[in-house]
Structure formats: structure tokens, C-alpha cells
């Protein structure tokens, strides 16, 4: 293994070892995604039954509406878990007051970020996987019916979550542990603009302008087109990918700036307080 790969593995191993001996942490990984799926799954089933029985409705339309709802829930969890995965992995170092040892090792900041992203990827798989299984077993909803394009939906949402998470980590470097609460809340604030459960067109004009800048809104427009019409909207995916490149670039630059600022202020010495 090369030097950088080995250092990134070292960081990843540290978190895997932690999860291996902490069942509450393991439970937390899948708890929310599965709970969300249970609640929204029954909601979707109820709404589909009403829609199927309504005048002008039918089982096909009802099934598509339920699928769009469940698809939205599952894919939004990818962004949420991706964001929390990075932020929580960083905060584990804060909580254990271990950051100074990490920062005086030969681990470069870019390798630290790579290790956090790798851990986030593991957390997304461990968290969303069971929810996908629950959706399939209980509600007969197969997310993979969207086809290979699902990989691009996953990737874009995860990268968006990472960009937000690096912003949160930067704020923690700047403001200390007081900024921790943002790790759980900040992405929820973007939900209205992400068009998870409705098309962007229903938003008022000023909100549409904001939604246009949120990569997730393009992903969910693409998801609905794939589910309802069997079409892949490559234009929407292109926008999502382009915006993600922009946001992740900005987030990495912000992290680098705040990391250097923390080294200048001495904030890494007392990190965790």
C-alpha cells in the first residue's frame, strides 16, 4: 500500500475498530433510515390506496405516486447519511480529544478529508442498505428498478452531503464544539429546496432560484422522470454534477482555509473544548 493510501486506511481502520466494539453506534447507523422508511412506507401505502379508489385514479398511477415518495425518502437519506458520516467521524476525534495526535502525524489534511469521506461511504452503505431492504420486503419497492442511472443519483447526493459536511467541519474548526449541532440540522434546512417530494415547479419563483443551485433538486427531478416516464434526464444530471463540482471545490477550499486559520490561532491545541 502506498504512503497516502496507508495513512487513509489508518484513519478508516480507527473508525471501523470503534464501530466494531460499540453496538449503539452500529444501531444508530441504520436506525433513522429504517425508521423513516417504515413511517413513509405506511404513509405511501395509505395514500396509494386512497388514490387508487378515487375517481379518475387507478392502481398504476397510485403505484407510481407511492414509488416517487419512497424513492425520494431513500435517496434523500443518501445525502443525509453522507453528510452526517463525515461530520460524525470528525467529531469522534473531537470527543475522544485525539485530534492533536492525528494532526502531528504525517497525515496530510487532504488525506484526513479522504479518510472522512471513506468512512462516510461505509456509513451510507450500512445505513441506507437496510432501509432499501425494508422498502423491498414490506412495500415491494425496488429502488434499483431505476436502472444503472441510480449509481449517478447516489453519487451526486453523496457528494452534495460531503460538501455540506466539509462546511460544517470548517465551522467546527472555526467556532469549536459549539458548532456541533449543525452536523445534525444543516442539511434538513435544505430539504424544502431539494424538491425531494415535489417538482421544483411548485415552488414560488424566489425559492426556485435557490433550488436551482441545490444539486439534489436536479437529482430528484431526474428520479421522478425515470420513475414516472422511464426517461433519463441527462441535462438534469449534468447540472447536478456541475453544481456538485462547484460546491465540493468551494467546501474543500473553505476547509483548507479554516484549517490553516486554526493552526494560526492555536485552535488545534484545545480542539474538543
Amino acid at each position, binding site marked *: 500500500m502506498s*504512503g497516502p493510501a*496507508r*495513512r487513509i*486506511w*489508518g*484513519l478508516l*481502520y*480507527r473508525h471501523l*475498530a*470503534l464501530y466494531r*466494539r*460499540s453496538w449503539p453506534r452500529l444501531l444508530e447507523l441504520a436506525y433513522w433510515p429504517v425508521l423513516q422508511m417504515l413511517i413513509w412506507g405506511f404513509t405511501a401505502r395509505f395514500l396509494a390506496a386512497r388514490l387508487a379508489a378515487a375517481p379518475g385514479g387507478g392502481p398504476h398511477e397510485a403505484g407510481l405516486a407511492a414509488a416517487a415518495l419512497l424513492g425520494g425518502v431513500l435517496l434523500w437519506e443518501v445525502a443525509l447519511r453522507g453528510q452526517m458520516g463525515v461530520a460524525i467521524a470528525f467529531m469522534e476525534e473531537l470527543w*475522544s*480529544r*485525539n485530534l*492533536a*495526535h*492525528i*494532526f*502531528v*502525524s*504525517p*497525515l*496530510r489534511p487532504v488525506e484526513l478529508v479522504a479518510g472522512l469521506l471513506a468512512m462516510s461511504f461505509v456509513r451510507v452503505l450500512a445505513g441506507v442498505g437496510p432501509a432499501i431492504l425494508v422498502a423491498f420486503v414490506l412495500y415491494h419497492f425496488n429502488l434499483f428498478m431505476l436502472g444503472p442511472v441510480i449509481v449517478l443519483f447516489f453519487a451526486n447526493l453523496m457528494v452534495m452531503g460531503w460538501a455540506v459536511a466539509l462546511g460544517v467541519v470548517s465551522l467546527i474548526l472555526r467556532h469549536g464544539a459549539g458548532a456541533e449541532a449543525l452536523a445534525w440540522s444543516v442539511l434538513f434546512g435544505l430539504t424544502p429546496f431539494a424538491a425531494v417530494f415535489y417538482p421544483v415547479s411548485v415552488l414560488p419563483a424566489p425559492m426556485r432560484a435557490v433550488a436551482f443551485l441545490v444539486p439534489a433538486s436536479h437529482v430528484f427531478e431526474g428520479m421522478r422522470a425515470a420513475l414516472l416516464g422511464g426517461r433519463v434526464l441527462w441535462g438534469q444530471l449534468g447540472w447536478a454534477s456541475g453544481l456538485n463540482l462547484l460546491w465540493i471545490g468551494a467546501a474543500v477550499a473553505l476547509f483548507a482555509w479554516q484549517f*490553516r486559520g486554526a*493552526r*494560526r*490561532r*492555536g485552535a*488545534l*491545541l484545545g480542539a474538543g473544548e
Partner: protein
Amino acid sequence: MDAVTVEHLSKRYGATLAVDDIGFRIARGATVGLLGGNGAGKTTTIAMLLGLLIPSAGQIRVLGVDMARDRFTALARMNFSSPYVALPSRLTVAEILRVYGHLYGVPRLEQRIRTLAEELDLTALLRQPSGQLSAGQKTRVALAKALINRPEVLLLDEPTASLDPDTGDWVRTWLERYRDESGCAMLLASHNMAEVERLCDDVLMMKQGRVVDRGSPAALLARYGRDDMEDVFLDIARDRRAMGARP
């Protein structure tokens, strides 16, 4: 070539000058002590040597490497131990050493962990979470972490703080042995004057960010006309001047 060279090093936080134009060298195989009261600038100096803190002015070279330009090359050959920086408490001793072994790119890591565990009497503790260990055991784990990469420069911030005299003596003996066998250069910040007298070839006395006196323990004792370093420390802390400096 010296292992560590520090020239005109300063650190300013706003209006406060935490470290004020200090300079020193540490030869290979030598131990330099950093003494001073709370707030004297010891921790700030160590943090700058480790790259945790960017100096306001001055230059630090470790093993010939300019820390401002290429600190990661030097960091791979250095290490650090402090009872005030914790290790992950839920990880076992073996897992902690494995994590840091990977971060420092240690070859034949499992063999190195076994050797260190034998030398530091940790073999029976390898499978125990570090959070369940006693203070003395944690200190030995911290020492094992600090030695995992066979450092050529070791920075020690109060390595025997809160240890009983027996364990403290054991740690000091072990550090002496490692230094003598490996030629490692050490910088030791400590409030334990007996430890400083025993381990250090040279002592820097810091006060309000400045190095106000320096010399070997024997030279400092002679200069202040004292029998132990604690009295020398108090003389400096209370602005009593060295005998040679009196009019």
C-alpha cells in the same frame, strides 16, 4: 547537524506575545529541558515544533527539514507524547498502535507492536480498551504510541505527570535507554525538577515567552548557588538573579 534548530521564534496572539524571539538547538542523542511556570510559553513552543501552530516569526528546522515548507517529511520521523492529549478510549491498545503504525507508515507493523508491547510490559493489555487502563498503564501506551515509528526526535510534555514515583522512575529509565540506544533527540517540558536534572543535558528556563537563562543543570545550580533545580526554578520565577549576574 543538529536534530532541531530554532531561530528567532515568536508567536503573537493579538496583543499577547506568547513566545518572544527564542532560539535553541538540540543535538542528536541529547535531551533539552524546557522549564517555566504556567503560561511561560512551553506548550506554545512545542506546538510550533510539531506544526500544530504557525509561528508569527522565526524558523524551525527538524532533521534538516524546514517545518514551514515540508513539515510532513519531518513529522514522519518525529513523535510526541503528552498526558493531556488522550488516545481513543474505546479502542484496544493493539488497535491504537495499529492506527498510529499505519499513520506513520511503520514497516512490519505487527512485529513492531509485539516488540514494543514486550519492552513496555503491555503484552497482557493489548486486547484491553485503553479507557479501562490505570494512569500508569495509559502512560506506557502513550509511550508505545510515541515510539511506534522509532522517532529520531521526541517531544515530551510532562511525560510523568500524575504517575506514582515508581512508575515515574520506570518511564525515565526507559526514556534514557531509548535515547542512548537510538540517538534520539528529546525536548522535555516538565515541572518535575528531579526529572529534569536526571534526563537533561541542557535546560532552557522560560518566562513570559522568553528564554531567560539556559545551561546544563550543573551549570545552572552553580550559577544560582543552589543545591537543586527547584530552587533555581523559584529564583527565576521570583526574579532573583544568578550569582554571576550580581553586581
